[in-house]
């Protein structure tokens, strides 16, 4: 079993504090969902864990099996087992999806032990078929001109090819039609198991109907303000966030407000 522990994480962007002490612990074989209104720091948490260059961690730690990933370069974090499906994946012209994926896989392997082209293609074809992606997507340039839904599917393709220990999925369900949502969920459920833990950021119960979370957390004002089980998400779906705000005496939930 592996664990990802986030301890008292404070994060600034352009000198403004966004995360104000996040605590969270995830183990493999668990799926956690993070919910919360817009602008409450969910993407910031994901970005800070992965090492986005704009986000500065001012306090706290993120431990992957006891090792502080905040001291690692972004690629080292990935190789240590972290993966982030981004809310807005980059487009990279001139680099085919397939070439990129092969580089990503080979980056994890020793020099001289690169994946054979045949094996790679087999695995890529199989995974793309599983995700109902047309074969030509492999030869398209990375995310370039992909529709919103295609980008999300492509993030899951990467997830399944790279097979990280912990995945953070930032609004992987946004902009997906119902068929795409099913396919993406199928991909994530396929990954579920002993060697895999997942933190899903979402606004919608719709995703959680397909992927039942073990834990649900609510973020407001740059902190996790409430945690519970799958039933918490259902309550949020039914009642919104006001009851939590009332319960906790929060008036303005975004990070703009003083905690």
């Amino acid at each position, binding site marked *: 079993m592996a664990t990802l522990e986030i301890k008292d994480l404070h994060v600034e962007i352009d000198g403004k504090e966004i995360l104000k002490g996040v605590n969270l612990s995830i183990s493999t074989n668990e799926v956690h969902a993070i919910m919360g209104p817009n602008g409450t720091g969910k993407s910031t948490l994901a970005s800070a864990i992965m090492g986005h260059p704009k986000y500065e961690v001012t306090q706290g730690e993120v431990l992957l099996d006891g090792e502080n990933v905040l001291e690692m370069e972004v*690629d080292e*974090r990935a190789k240590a087992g972290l993966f982030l499906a981004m809310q807005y994946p980059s487009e990279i012209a*001139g*680099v085919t999806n397939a070439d990129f994926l092969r580089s990503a896989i080979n980056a994890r392997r020793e020099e001289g032990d690169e994946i054979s082209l045949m094996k790679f293609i087999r695995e890529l074809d199989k995974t793309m078929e599983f995700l109902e992606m047309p074969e030509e997507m492999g030869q398209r340039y*990375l995310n370039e001109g992909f529709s919103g839904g295609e980008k999300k599917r492509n993030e899951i393709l990467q997830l399944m090819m790279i097979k990280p220990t912990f995945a953070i999925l930032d609004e992987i369900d946004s902009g997906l039609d119902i068929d795409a949502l099913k396919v993406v969920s199928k991909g994530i459920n396929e990954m579920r198991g002993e060697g895999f833990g997942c933190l899903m950021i979402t606004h919608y119960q719709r995703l959680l109907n397909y992927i039942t979370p073990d834990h649900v957390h609510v973020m407001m004002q740059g902190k996790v303000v409430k945690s519970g089980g799958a039933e918490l998400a259902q309550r949020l779906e039914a009642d919104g966030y006001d009851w939590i705000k009332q319960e906790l005496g929060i008036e303005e939930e975004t990070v703009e407000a003083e905690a």
Partner: protein
Amino acid sequence: MTVETKLALSAEEVRSFSQSNNEPAWFADFRADALAKAAELALPTPDKTNITKWNFTEFPKHTVESAAYASLDSLPAEVAALIDVEGQQNLYIQRNNTPAFSKVSEELKAKGVIFTDIQTAVREHSDLVQKYFMTTAVKVDEHKLAAYHAALVNGGVFVYVPRNVIVEEPLQVVFVNDDTEASLFNHVLVVAEESSSVTYVETYVSTIEESKGLANIIAEVVVKDNAQVVFGAVDVLAKGFTTYVNRRANIARDGKIEWALGLMNDSDTISENISHLIGDGSVADTKTVVVGRGTQKQNFTTEVRHWGKNSDGQILKHGVMKDGAQSIFNGIGKIEHGATKANAEQESRVLMLSDKARGDANPILLIDEDDVTAGHAASVGRVDPIQLYYLMSRGISKAEAERLVIHGFLAPVVTNLPIEGVKKQLTEVIERKVR
């Protein structure tokens, strides 16, 4: 004001060179006349680069003798890598100034296609050459370098595709440079008659570290009505050359030219690539990629000039600058009066890999007609840190991520080169240059 320039060769020397090549009288006169013009004409004036102190006239030798290649087995590795020895049907290799290997399929000959070195063409297809040689696309008296080129031409290729002939296989040309004293006054003349189609790919490859010579290269492409020409070029000339390279096309009604130019010289280079969209409905699609390194100074002018109605011009230019390299990227879309419904688009992007490098994207739109569409995008910047972050978040190292982004940035030309060996070589040259 004109200043008489002392030139390296006299009129007598030029005439005797012409005679030693058994050139027809008109060509000897043409050379001598051009030489006189070269002495008087001014240099071209590429926008934003002052070349008055560059040496475009002095060189160690006008021509060097090199051995021909007895067979393709005797090619140096760098050259052999470019060629699909078995598959390539139509091939011309020039070694410095010497025609060194040539192969043309019987099928093409039977169709009346001419694909031969320029010296032979001047002798054997004198009328055709006379009709087009610096008469249509580039004029002898444009400036000093054009005239000097005309006087001293010592290599090149002639391609003639008759009416309605479709040349399926690409014509491949390799200009090998392995003599430090060689200068290249190569002239390429491609004439595509009405409704014909041809793909021509040339590679300049230096196998020497440093040259003492000049390169004054002109390629002219004449695209007749409804004809289509794909012109691919990869230039990898050694440092030390002073290079002037002018590639130009005239496109008639419904004709189309596609340029895919990988300009990878290590020399100081002035490159000019102009497409004249003369006919209605004519099209020019220009893709250029460049890598500058070391202390080289370069100027790349890409222009599409619209005369024809409904003409369409696309310019894509991507440059990578490292070390202390300096480059100017002039992109010019010019729409003449009367070219209604013309469309002029351009995109110029420069990627800076060092603080000391300089790269200026200089997009220019000159429009003399109301009923047209035009647009341009230009940018100069560094590798996008967010793109690097994205790639690195998949475990790819920073160096490899940068490599991917840079290759991707230069891919538009690589993917458009129709010969596998040339494509691979360009990728390798890019790899070597940006490392």
